[in-house]
C-alpha cells in the first residue's frame, strides 16, 4: 500500500476513534473533530448562505453534531456525515427565514448590473464574490452540485425542486460565473 493511502487510512482511523470518543462524551475529542472539519463546514455554510450568517450557523452545525453523535453509525466517514448534517442545518435555516420556492429566477444574466456587495471597491468581482452575488436558488444549486458534488436528484429532494429545475439553475449559474474565472 503506498504511503499516501496508508496515511489517509491512519488519519481516517484516528478521526473515527475521535468520533467514538466524542459520542461517549469526550469533549476534547470533539474539539479535535471540530478543528479538522471547521474550515470545510464554514466554507460550505458561507457559500450556501452568506458571510454574515456563516459564523453563527457553523456553530449551530457543530452543536447539532454533538447532540446527534449518538446516531452516527460509522457507516460513512465522519466527515461525510457531518457534511450532510451541515447541509440540513443550512436548508432548515432557509425555511425559517420564509424563503419561498419562487426564488428560482429564470431571467437572463443573473449577475447583470450587480456590483460587488461588499469589500471590493473596484468594479470587478472575483469568482467567489460573483458566486456570493448569484440569486439564492442558482447559488445553492451550484454550490451543492459543482462545489460539493451532490447529484441533481439529491439536490431536488433537498431543495424541494424537480431535478429539471436543478439542472437549469446550475446552467444559469455556470453561464453567469464564466466571466469571473480569471480574477
Amino acid at each position, binding site marked *: 500500500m503506498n504511503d499516501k493511502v496508508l496515511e489517509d487510512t491512519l488519519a481516517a482511523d484516528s478521526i473515527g*476513534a475521535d468520533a467514538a*470518543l466524542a459520542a*461517549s462524551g469526550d*469533549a476534547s475529542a470533539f474539539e479535535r473533530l471540530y478543528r479538522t472539519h471547521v474550515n470545510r463546514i464554514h466554507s460550505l455554510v458561507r457559500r450556501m448562505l452568506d458571510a454574515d450568517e456563516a459564523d453563527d450557523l457553523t456553530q449551530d452545525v457543530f452543536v447539532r453534531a454533538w447532540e446527534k453523535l449518538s446516531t452516527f453509525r460509522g457507516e460513512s466517514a465522519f466527515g461525510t456525515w457531518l457534511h450532510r448534517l451541515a447541509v440540513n442545518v443550512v436548508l432548515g435555516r432557509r425555511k425559517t427565514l420564509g424563503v419561498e420556492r419562487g426564488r428560482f429566477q429564470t431571467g437572463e444574466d443573473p449577475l447583470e448590473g450587480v456590483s460587488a456587495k461588499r469589500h471590493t471597491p473596484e468594479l470587478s468581482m472575483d469568482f467567489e464574490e460573483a458566486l456570493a452575488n448569484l440569486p439564492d436558488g442558482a447559488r445553492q444549486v451550484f454550490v451543492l452540485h459543482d462545489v460539493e458534488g451532490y447529484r441533481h436528484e439529491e439536490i431536488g429532494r433537498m431543495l424541494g425542486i424537480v431535478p429539471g429545475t436543478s439542472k437549469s439553475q446550475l*446552467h444559469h449559474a455556470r453561464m453567469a*460565473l*464564466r466571466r469571473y474565472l480569471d480574477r
Partner: protein
Amino acid sequence: MNDQWTDRLSEYVDDELANGERTALEAHLATCAACRATVEDLRKVVARARALDDSAPKANLWPGVAKRIGAGKVVDIRSRRFSFNVPQLIAASIALMLLSGGGAWLALKPPQIASDGPFTPAPSQGQLQATWTGKTDAAIADLQNVFDRNKSRLDTSTVRVVQQAFTTIDRAIAEARTALQADPSDAYLNLHLADTMRRKLELLRRVNALATAQS
C-alpha cells in the same frame, strides 16, 4: 449568442445527455465555434468550483460551541446511547465492556478545556491505548480479586478448568498487546485487544456467578 443547444451544454459537460442527443449535439459542436467556446468556459467553471479552497473562519468559533455543548462537565455515559457497526471503534468497545454487566463503570471525564488557548493536540496513539487499557485492566483486576475470594466454593477440577481458560485468554491478550505496541494506531489491533479483554471480563463474571451460586 444563443441557439437551441445553448441551454443543454451543461448537461453535455456533465455527461447527462442521452446517446441520441449527445451525438446530435456533438455534430452541432463540430460546426459552431460559439458553442465550443461556451463548452470550454463551462468546463473551466466546473474546474474552478472543484478547486475552491476551504478557508478558515475569521473568528475562533470553538468557545461558542464549547459553551453550548457544556464542555468541561462530566457526562453520564449511560445517558448517551451509541452504537457503531463493526468495525467498531476503540472507545465504544471500552464503554460497552465496562457497562455490560455492571462491574467497574467509569464515566469518561473529558479533560478541562482551555477556552481560548491553542487546541489540545490529539494524544499520541500510544497514549490513547494506555488510557483505555488502564481502565480495563482495573476492571479485570477487580473481578479477578472477587474470583480469588470465591473460588474455594468451586471444586478443584472446575477451578482448574477455569484457570486453563484464563491462561488461554491471558496469552491471547499478551500476544495482542505485543502486536499493538509495534503498531499502536492500527484499528484492527486495537479492536482485537479490546475484544479479547472483553472476553476475559465476561469469563470472570460468569465464573464468579457460578461460584456464588454454589452455596
